[in-house]
């Protein structure tokens, strides 16, 4: 905890600008926060007097609750701005919203937006630290950190682990941030999905392997992560339907046989049970899906704490 300084005032757009040491410090800090969350009295005073704004230009109940709980448990004040269905029109929303909130004295912004790069704009207009809570298909670094933290807790390290990520690779920001982080932390990532849902040059960009057959993809895997499959993709002509998708890429008990015996099963939520993951797997002892949610609050507490320069004593 002696290197708080290097985090102070930083932005988190994605994990590419954070070093291995820094990510490890985030994990160590999250471990302490997780302990605090288990207490009867789940609150510490470290961010008292700080104000955090969550700016959600795209709906996400879970991520928002996770961030708000994290902020409140550190005793920060939280204001929530939700642009969905409000007066925000394309073109004038972001800049004026940020100017307005900034004028009221916000110390840190949490931003969810459907446009990649929007968190950078929030920083440009506010000059305050910004945590990216998901920008389009681009990045979702706090999700990747909580995913990696969950693996790190169970396995002690990420180095050398085979992590297989299955699903809609093309549209997933969770995937992109995970690949950036995993490469950094020394895990070997394999991505798997129908060819129509795979982006180009994935190996060049992320150093990850591509597989199109699920059984090959999970062979010897230490971790399997399923991504949410969205029905809209069917309408876009990218795959025939959820039934065929589930048969080819759904995680079943049968599939797990090809992975390591102690394989961890993960999912960023919300799950489509019976589509990308069968209940027999989601609820199996391999699954750490619920714990990922618990860890989400701890990771976000750690980040807020480190970036807003909180002190432990």
């Amino acid at each position: 905890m002696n290197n708080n300084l290097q985090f102070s005032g930083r932005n988190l757009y994605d994990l590419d600008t954070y070093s291995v040491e820094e990510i490890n410090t985030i994990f160590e800090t999250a471990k302490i926060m997780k302990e605090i969350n288990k207490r009867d009295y789940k609150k510490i005073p470290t961010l008292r007097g700080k104000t955090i704004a969550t700016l959600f230009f795209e709906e996400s109940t879970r991520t928002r609750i996770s961030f708000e709980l994290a902020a409140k448990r550190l005793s920060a004040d939280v204001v929530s701005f939700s642009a969905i269905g409000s007066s925000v029109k394309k073109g004038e929303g972001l800049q004026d919203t940020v100017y307005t909130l900034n004028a009221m004295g916000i110390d840190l912004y949490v931003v969810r937006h459907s446009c990649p790069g929007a968190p950078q704009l929030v920083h440009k207009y506010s000059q305050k630290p910004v945590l990216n809570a998901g920008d389009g298909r681009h990045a979702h670094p706090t999700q990747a950190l909580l995913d990696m933290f969950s693996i790190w807790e169970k396995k002690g390290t990420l180095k050398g682990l085979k992590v297989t990520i299955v699903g809609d690779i093309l549209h997933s920001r969770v995937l992109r941030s995970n690949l950036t982080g995993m490469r950094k932390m020394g895990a070997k990532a394999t991505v798997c999905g129908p060819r129509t849902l795979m982006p180009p040059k994935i190996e060049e960009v992320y150093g990850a392997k591509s597989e199109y057959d699920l059984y090959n993809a999970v062979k010897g895997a230490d971790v399997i992560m399923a991504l949410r499959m969205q029905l809209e993709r069917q309408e876009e002509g990218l795959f025939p339907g959820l039934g065929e998708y589930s048969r080819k890429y759904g995680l079943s008990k049968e599939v797990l046989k090809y992975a390591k015996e102690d394989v961890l099963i993960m999912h960023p939520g919300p799950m489509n049970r019976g589509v990308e993951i069968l209940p027999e797997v989601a609820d199996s002892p391999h699954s750490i899906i619920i714990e990922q949610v618990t860890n989400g609050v701890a990771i976000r507490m750690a980040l807020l704490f480190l970036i807003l320069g909180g002190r432990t004593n």
Partner: protein
Amino acid sequence: MILLKNGLVYLSSKKKIEKLDILIDGKIIKKIASNISNKSAKIYDCKGKHIFPGFVDLHCHLRDPGYTYKEDIVSGAESAAKGGFTSICCMPNTNPTIDNISTLNYVIRKARDVGKTKIFVIGAMSKGREGKEIADIGSMVNGGIVGISDDGNCIQNAKLMLNVMRYSSNYEIPIISHSEDYSLSKGGQVNYGYMSTKLGLPGIPTLAEEIMVSRDIMLAALTGTHIHIAHASTKRTVELIRQAKKDKINVTAEATPHHLILTEMACENFDTNTKMNPPLRADADRQALFQGLLDDTIDIIATDHAPHSDYEKELEFMNSPFGVIGFESAFPALYTNFIRTKKMGLEKLIEKMTSQPAEIIDKDIGKISEGKSADLTIVDLEKSYIFTEKEILSRAKNSPFLGKKFWARIEMTICDGKFTWKA
């Protein structure tokens, strides 16, 4: 009378640079020779400076009428003059669209009143550029258009495109094709490839351009109509054009400075000044485009000057409009990247910015010779500077070259014997 002394003059007839004097009388170049003396002329010492024919741009957007908050004919002409251009062709994607004689007349009259630059007009191919019905092409030809295009839009229906080409083959004007298959490019923001994957932005595949370039070449082969491919951006496009030329199909093509110099990597920080359509491509595409320029598969340089206001370019990348300005950076950027580094000869670049575009629109401009109109650009190739927002004369500042060091300063521009720019 104006007398330019001791300039290094590019003579199109000889494709050579010679140290000469130029005497201008009214709008016309009266004499080109060494050691001209004339007592009544105002003398400008051009020692060490190059004198090129005024640059000709076949592809720009002046936003007038309809979008004058971005640019208008006045600011566009001033920006062009500062970039050394004396003739520019503006695209019809205005509001209302230049698809009829009265809108055309508005542009032509206003351009004449401004007078800073010769402005030629490209008319629309289809009414409202909607790709449904043929525009009043015949009337607009009588009114003075030099080409037709739905630029920014691409006629998706092959039958309509065929009809446009058949219909206009009566007139000696090129059809300028913005080649893009919408079913492949829809929603796209950057090149489909490394950057679309890294930034999580929907991609525009090279295929979207290439499929339409192939179609248009085939239609040109059938109809014999002159097709000019706008802003070629991919390796396969260059190959298709090269083959079409071998097959004696009536096709010409242009490339923009930004596609020749930059790659998709420039988009890495979500800089909206790197967002244009077609998008910046992979380096292999850029190299192929440059090779095409060297072997004359690519006939000309065009700027695709596309001004947008600050507040439009300050939006999220996905909500920001496509396009970058180009007049004031075109020559310095190309000179700095290709001529100064000896990758290409200066003469070739000048041809592709002067006489060759003039030839495509069949106009008697783009050459320095006695008796022709005095359209000249005087450049100091040894002067370097940083290209910044401050000095841009265009109403818009959306350039991907901001902050870059350029060589070659445009010292003076003369159009029809009048100074339109002086540094």
